């Protein structure tokens, strides 16, 4: 029997990986109420960009993190400025219009990836060993991704709650009209938020491609996985997303061991259905927020 401790550690670390990939989506939804359906494709784009930096310039995923995040952030800013900002959000079908726009964007991003990198799975050999604590092995790659997820979550939380720009962002999220009447440049603030969200998606991709090979069609699954996770935690809720990610990681690893891999892949959705039935606002979400 593998020690239950080893499985729990693996589960928590994979939870960190899932969180890392969902954070950008959570930020964009939290402050803008836009579900970015291109999220997974942006993660893959970031990952493949990191792969190219590794293959042609020798950048490790950690060194590639910043350049990839900058490129994806710039891309996000252009998308927000050029497309989403011009779509009226008011009315019953306001959210539907942004959904359609980001759905279209997902095609543009994944096909651009295909033109640039082709259709094959790519990955990077990096941090493949393990830290040993007595009999327990802690995979380095998983640990690095989890730490990055944790740091990113802390930084975003600090930025949103302790800085003027962050507070302006939250004010804009609560009431665009109120924020604008206080003299905030809500256009610019929304561009920053979307750019930050896509930068986080790209950064996540640059790290995770060292753990999971990416191919241009991987994006769809990642979007669904990330969206399920943030919905589970309560859309836009950071602590909730973190708890949901850890629960998912644990459930996935433990069920893969005890119940078999077929059930493990279904567990995320079984949990999601249970939450929708019994706590539709998500684990830590407030009623009426969704």
């Amino acid at each position, binding site marked *: *029997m*593998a020690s239950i401790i*080893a*499985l729990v550690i*693996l589960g928590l670390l*994979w939870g960190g990986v899932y969180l890392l990939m969902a954070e950008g989506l959570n930020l964009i939804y939290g402050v803008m109420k836009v579900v970015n359906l291109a999220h997974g494709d942006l993660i893959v784009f970031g990952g493949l960009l990191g792969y190219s930096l590794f*293959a042609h310039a020798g950048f490790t995923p950690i060194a590639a993190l910043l350049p990839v995040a900058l490129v994806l952030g710039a891309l996000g800013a252009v998308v927000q400025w050029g497309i989403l900002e011009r779509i009226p959000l008011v009315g019953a079908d306001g959210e539907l219009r942004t959904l359609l726009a980001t759905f279209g964007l997902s095609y543009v991003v994944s096909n651009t990836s*295909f033109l640039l990198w*082709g*259709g*094959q*799975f*790519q*990955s*990077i*050999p990096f941090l*493949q*060993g*393990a830290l040993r604590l007595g009999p327990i*092995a802690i*995979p*380095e*790659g*998983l640990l690095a991704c989890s730490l990055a997820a944790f740091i990113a979550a802390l930084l975003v939380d600090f930025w949103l709650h302790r800085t003027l720009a962050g507070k302006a962002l939250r004010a804009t999220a609560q009431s665009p009209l109120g924020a604008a009447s206080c003299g905030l440049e809500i256009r610019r603030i929304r561009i920053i938020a979307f750019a930050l969200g896509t930068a986080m998606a790209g950064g996540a991709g640059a790290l995770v491609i060292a*753990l*999971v*090979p990416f*191919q*241009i*069609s991987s994006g769809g*699954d990642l979007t669904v996985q990330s969206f399920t996770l943030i919905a589970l935690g309560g859309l836009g809720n950071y602590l909730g997303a973190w708890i949901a990610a850890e629960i998912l990681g644990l459930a*996935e*690893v*433990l069920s*893969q*061991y005890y119940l*078999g*891999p*077929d059930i*493990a*892949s279904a567990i995320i959705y079984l949990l999601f259905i249970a939450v929708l039935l019994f706590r539709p606002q998500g684990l830590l979400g407030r009623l009426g927020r969704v």
Partner: protein
Amino acid sequence: MARQRQVRSAGRIILAAAWCALCAAPAARAAEEGPIRVGCSITETGPYSPPAVFELQGYRLAAEEINKAGGLLGRKVEIVNYDDQGNPSTAVQLYQKLIYSDRVDLLLSPYETDLMSAVAPLVTRAKKVMPSLGANVDAFQGQFPYLVQAITETPRYMGPAIDLAASRGYKTIALLIQNTQFPQQLARGIEQEATAKGMRVVFKESFPPTTTDFSALVLKAAEAHPDVIVGATYLADSEGIVRAAKAQNINAKMFAFSIGPVEPEFGRGLGAAADGVFGTTLYFPTLHTAGNAEFVAAFKEKFERMPDYHAAVAYASLKVLAEAVRKVGSLDQDKIRDALLAASVDTVAGHFQLSPTGLQIGYTSYVLQWQHGAQALVWPADQATAAPELPHGAW
């Protein structure tokens, strides 16, 4: 009045038909003197295009060589191909067009199994022979009599790898299987081969194709203490299993995968961790098969890259088809099929021989190993370019 109009329109139809027949007759005669047109759909664009483009290049090279050697039945060979974008329903429409509108003389196969299976009923209805590049055995049990298999059948994929393990005295296997059609059929072949060689499968588990985290699965497999960990996999899952094994320091005497190590991306993605891992391939540029050295040289010159197995089996399938046509002396599809079923030909991809239902029983597979960052052909011994490095050391 109405009746009169009917008669008149009937007359017009007859006239039109006669006119068409008059026009078509010279055209048909011209077609017989023109090139022999060989049709296929190929995934030239989209995520599934890289192997299919190799296949198209294999077909093109074969056609070029046939033409250089004087053509077929005194006529040139011309390949008519359309892009199916990897979509089975598009492929069906394209084969419909090839058969009924373009009226091609011969058919070649699309890649891969999904597309081939989609066009199989249509091709069979039209009674057109098609050397098919689908490895799964289902299409070659007799229900599609005009399809013949021109690639190694799935159950034989990993036979030589099991043979290598058995030759080293390894006794137990842990089998990890992706839960899709090809790997499952492959796993049944592995189990049969293992039993035949006196080995035992001590752990067997399947996983869905969306799995990205293999840590718990590999941990569980290791508890059965297998000599060999075998994956019936594709590229991404084979990498995932190797990563999980290395990160948790799970060791076995041998790691072997069906698809994964054969791709160059396996070595690029895993770096040093790829070294020592075994994979299966249906072809290798150094094989001592009939005409292989010439094929590799010609392919390299024409397309500026080394041929892979898709290119080799495609090239061989057109060569075998042409040989059958030559033997028959006409384009009679039934006679061509019978000639193919009776064929026993050495090709660049191996010895081409079929069962009475068209199953490929001649082609086999080969074992490669990543050694010092490159693939080496290690088994069977008579084709090897390097000795297999066994057992696999600790990570």
